[in-house]
């Protein structure tokens, strides 16, 4: 099952089971059906539970929060993270605080699906990830699943547990496929996954960067370096313990994140480990992230902007203090993805 299909499946499974669940957002039932992630839902559940909305991100989120206070379990879909920034008042001032402002007597429950664009000239306002922005806010749960299995399991957890949840989905993951169980299963928030075991260096990634890091691990293996890859899955709550256990073993840490460095999740992980046990580092950690600027549009600029698999591999050589690098040819990304979306 593809990533996009697993998202679709999770929503369908929950809508069959729970009458409170409904899905809406600009373009949800429209042709394209949000890159296939809402395909067929309207046909199965009708236009009362699967519907388009006005282009009013803040208003729509506010409406859904109001509905959640009457017992509903809405899912709000946004085709790009960037558009959702208009709704930050309802997210940060309301959804995340409601439970605390009212001493737990009332809670706003909504699942907000946000899709990250990248490549094919998405430009500065269609490519942001905003992982760190959302992960900064107490009261939110933030998911950035890298696999179809986790995407489905985390949607189900979000809808069953309630509370406001932001799920960041990378468009580049949408066609990645794996076996996904039918029916209901949960993937918990706050539990990272050891995606690949290794002993020399710890690689930490989330979302699409897990796929990139995986390629780097394979190339490193060819050069005799055994890297352990940790997929964070959940950015809030953040599972620092799993990273700690791995670095305790390897002593070396490389963090790969599709975001900017300042105030990032990767920075938070390094800080947490340093607070906990500065002695675990045998070398200074390295972060492979975006340059400190918005993403450009032109193809060669875009290529220069995003770190490559080679950059990830080379960072591992560097923290290990070994000469050498990952070969340019092998790290060339085979991009199946093509536009306009």
């Amino acid at each position: 099952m593809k990533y996009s299909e697993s998202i679709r499946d999770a929503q369908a499974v929950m809508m069959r089971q729970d009458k409170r669940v409904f899905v809406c957002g600009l373009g949800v039932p429209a042709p394209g059906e949000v890159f296939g992630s809402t395909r067929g839902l309207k046909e199965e559940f009708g236009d009362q539970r699967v519907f388009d909305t006005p282009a009013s991100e803040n208003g729509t989120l506010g409406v859904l929060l109001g509905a959640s206070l009457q017992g509903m379990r809405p899912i709000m879909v946004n085709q790009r993270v960037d558009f959702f920034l208009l709704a930050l008042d309802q997210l940060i001032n309301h959804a995340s605080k409601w439970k605390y402002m009212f001493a737990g007597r009332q809670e706003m429950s909504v699942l907000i699906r946000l899709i990250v664009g990248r490549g094919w000239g998405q430009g500065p306002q269609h490519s942001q990830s905003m992982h760190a922005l959302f992960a900064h806010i107490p009261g939110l749960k933030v998911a950035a699943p890298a696999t179809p299995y986790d995407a489905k399991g985390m949607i189900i957890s979000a809808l069953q547990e309630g509370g406001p949840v932001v799920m960041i989905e990378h468009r580049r993951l949408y066609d990645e496929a794996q076996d996904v169980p039918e029916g209901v299963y949960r993937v918990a928030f706050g539990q990272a996954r050891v995606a690949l075991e290794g002993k020399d260096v710890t690689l930490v990634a989330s979302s699409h960067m897990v796929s990139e890091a995986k390629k780097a691990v394979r190339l490193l293996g060819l050069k005799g370096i055994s890297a352990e890859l940790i997929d964070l899955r959940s950015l809030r709550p953040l599972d620092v313990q799993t990273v700690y256990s791995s670095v305790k073993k390897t002593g070396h840490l490389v963090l790969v994140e599709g975001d900017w460095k300042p105030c990032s999740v990767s920075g938070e992980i390094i800080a947490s480990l340093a607070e906990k046990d500065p002695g675990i580092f045998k070398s200074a950690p390295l972060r492979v992230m975006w340059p400190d600027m918005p993403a450009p549009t032109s193809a060669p600029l875009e290529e220069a902007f995003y770190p490559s698999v080679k950059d990830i591999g080379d960072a591992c050589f560097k923290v290990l203090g070994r000469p050498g690098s990952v070969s340019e040819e092998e790290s060339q990304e085979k991009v199946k993805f093509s536009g306009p979306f």
Partner: protein
Amino acid sequence: MPNDIFYDTHMKNKPTSYGRMPGIPDGKDLKRKLLRGMLRLRLIEERLSAIYHQADEIKTPMHLYTGQEAVAVGVCAALRPSDTVSPYHRSHGWYIAKGGDLNAMMAELMGKEAGCSGGWGGSMHLLDTAAGVMGSSSILAATVPHAVGAALAFQMKGEDRVAVAPAGDAAIEEGVFHESLNWASFKKLPVIFVCENNLYSTTTPLSARQPRVDIYKRAEAYGMPGHRCDGNDVGGVYAKAVEAVHRARRKEGPSLIEVMTYRWREHVGPHYDWDAGYRTKQEVEEWMEHCPIRALAAEFPAQEVQLLRDEFEKEIDESLAFARQAAFPRKETIKESIRV
């Protein structure tokens, strides 16, 4: 006069008597109910003003409702207990008028655990779901979509309920207000938008913030009826609310009611502020002269009104005593509840 056009229009339209309530059969009983509601609210707020700074026992910014009582009381009188209201920062009026628990409000203002928000909210964040008070926010217009969402849920679940979205005149300058009107009208949702036009945003007059376009007329652009009424005439507010509620229950969609009203005291805090320089003492006094409560009370025997006063003062004494003896939340709850 900073708000000449709005202000003058309003004053000229001011009715001279509360005797006429067309279409409302139970005139005297209704008037008594409205008088009770407004007087109780007024006395609660007058008491809060009196004690606010004295012992520093209420440590939360308090936006008093004094002068605007006819709005919340008039609108809520047209509602059923199962209907909801999503108030904003000037929240006491809506909380009390909708039937919120007074003891719990007083305890909340003092930051006590027995408060309606467990001491975590304060004056700007009041909640009483049993009474249909859905939780207030301090961000302008932010609870307006919450009321629309409540109405969406009522519609989806087939429940015969109505949601009310109060908002000040400054709130209608926020984008989300317009997004909410568009949403509600498009979906024909059972929601009533109530704009409490008190002519000021903190201390900035309407004329410095909006073009000379009447607020209630903007409803038409969203395909819903817009009404304006006199905020010193509680019967008039009630009558418009009844009309809007009927429309909502008939599944004909939302309405907007603009109520011309006035905040007697400062934006936040217990004082009169006519010396602050943004409005004249004369303006304030003109509004006070047309006090919605005094005019209605004049229709009842003085003795009856005095009995009401005594009843409410006693209730307020008791609620303050309740709040004062209530316990503060344990400090440990910060650590216990910080994780999501």
